[in-house]
């Protein structure tokens, strides 16, 4: 598969709206940080070292068996246009750091985009698995399979006391970062997020908004992940995240019920206004789009809005970002042009989504 396939397609398997609790948990991500013995870490290494690392990781993965060879595509960052790099970042297939390492970075992408192995990011190897919905165990098992495959051939930097040795001491030990991306509009609207963030951070977990820079999470999407990687087994880290995610899901559901009970008309009005905005607006900023998409998503989840498919919303969250818009437009756009083009794409997509879904359905 060529890199163009990854860039043209705004959908990834993690956006399919499957998996457990997919009304609240958008995706689950597992990341393992690994390094090879005998080479300095990317902060300190030479391009020659980088090249050798890249060669041995790529060949190990691609030569492992035919399945994987067919499945994985190796992409060197230097061969991807700047816009292309931005698109890969917006799809969460590579990190911004890797996108900014054009001379040394590369990535191995699986065809369904659920696995990406970043080479020479902050660490020599970063195995990432991205699954739809809440699938912590499944995503970990996938990452673990790749990890075992690599460790059979490659000498990992490992220490009996400190575990997997990583460039940043915040990853030392298991090198495992497990995270879930959650859509929490009701907890946000009822102003409970601050309290939840405080409690969660006391439990050794981190919450942050994943889109946008400000303190407010764009589109009410938050990422919850483990903070500590040392002194806990992989199983415990995963189990703790699972349990915290389930508790947040529970709280979000309660908050949704409360909203529906207290002010059903106001809520319905607000959610449909957002759908109206998405369907007819001519200029749309990222912030407004994210807010409206969040409302519509909530409307679908609680059964108020019926004729739009959830996976379309996940896709909209991705392609409304600047890199994707410009990729679609086939040209660079200034901010106003982007707002215009964004409004147009969202309009078209939502109308198409409505048609696709009502096709073959009995009229209500």
């Amino acid at each position, binding site marked *: 598969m060529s890199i163009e396939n990854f860039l043209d397609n705004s959908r990834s398997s993690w956006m399919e709206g499957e998996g457990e609790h997919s009304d609240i948990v958008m995706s689950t991500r597992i990341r393992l940080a690994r*390094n090879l*013995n005998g*080479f*300095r*870490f990317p*902060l*300190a290494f030479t391009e020659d070292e980088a090249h050798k690392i890249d060669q041995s990781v790529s060949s190990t993965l691609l030569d492992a068996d035919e399945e994987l060879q067919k499945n994985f595509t190796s992409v060197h960052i230097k061969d991807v246009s700047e816009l292309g790099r931005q698109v890969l970042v917006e799809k969460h297939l590579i990190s911004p750091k890797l996108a900014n390492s054009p001379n040394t970075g590369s990535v191995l992408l699986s065809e369904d985009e659920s696995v990406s192995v970043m080479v020479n990011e*902050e660490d020599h190897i970063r195995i990432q698995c991205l699954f739809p919905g809440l699938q912590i165990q499944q995503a970990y098992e996938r990452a673990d399979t790749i990890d*075992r495959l690599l*460790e*059979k051939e490659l000498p*990992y*930097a*490992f*220490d*009996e*006391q*400190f*575990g*997997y*040795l*990583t*460039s*940043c*001491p*915040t990853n*030392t*030990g*298991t090198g*495992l970062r497990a995270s879930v991306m959650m859509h929490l509009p009701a907890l946000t609207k009822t102003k409970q997020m601050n309290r939840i963030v405080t409690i969660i951070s006391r439990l*050794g977990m981190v919450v942050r908004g994943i889109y946008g820079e400000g303190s407010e999470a764009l589109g009410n999407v938050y990422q919850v992940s483990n*903070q*500590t*990687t*040392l*002194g*806990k*087994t*992989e199983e415990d*880290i995963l189990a703790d995240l699972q349990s915290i995610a389930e508790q947040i899901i529970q709280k979000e559901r309660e908050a949704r019920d409360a909203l529906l009970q207290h002010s059903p008309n106001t809520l319905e009005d607000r959610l449909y206004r957002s759908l109206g905005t998405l369907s007819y607006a001519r200029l749309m900023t990222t912030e407004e789009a994210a807010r409206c998409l969040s409302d519509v998503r909530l409307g679908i989840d609680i059964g108020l809005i019926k004729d739009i498919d959830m996976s379309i919303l996940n896709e909209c969250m991705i392609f409304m970002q600047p890199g994707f818009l410009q990729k679609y437009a086939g040209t660079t756009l200034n901010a106003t042009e982007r707002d215009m083009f964004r409004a147009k794409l969202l309009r078209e997509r939502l109308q198409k989504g409505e048609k696709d879904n009502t096709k073959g359905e009995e009229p209500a």
Partner: protein
Amino acid sequence: MICENCKQRPAKVTVTQVHNGEHFERHYCEVCANSLHPFYVEYKQDPLSLHQLLSNWFNQADQIVQQKQQKTLECDECGWSIERFLEEGKFGCASCYESFRPHLPQALKRLHNGNTTHIGKAPGRLGEKIALKKRIEAIRAQMKQAVEQEQFEDAAKLRDEVKDLEKQLAGGGDDSHVD
């Protein structure tokens, strides 16, 4: 005063950096200070010097000063000094862990909720080795107990078992499993 970084929140933390003998003072809010300098931030009213910060960090005021006078702690492999590690908050290579080993538990403790030792997965053959070591430790404990209870026959058996396992560990004998 407003935080230099986000220019939003009030600055509460002063970080003094020493670069080529020159002192730079930076004023950050707690949020930015934590994300920019997770390693040597202390919440105190008075600005702290790098020296003070480092010594608080290690809890061994004298040692750092001594090291300054003699020779700074450096990694043989990548040449990074421990000061550079603290400044960047990153290691230069895997050998840095070995070079700075005595100081690391202190540092890691802060980041990992008081933990300093890995108990998770280990790569293949090394993982087997570690498992073997743990088994030997467990049997030694049993042996000690047997001796205390004057069950010398059992103790002797356990001792032989330990010997076998130790041989296995030293030789890396992968396929000779002793039960």
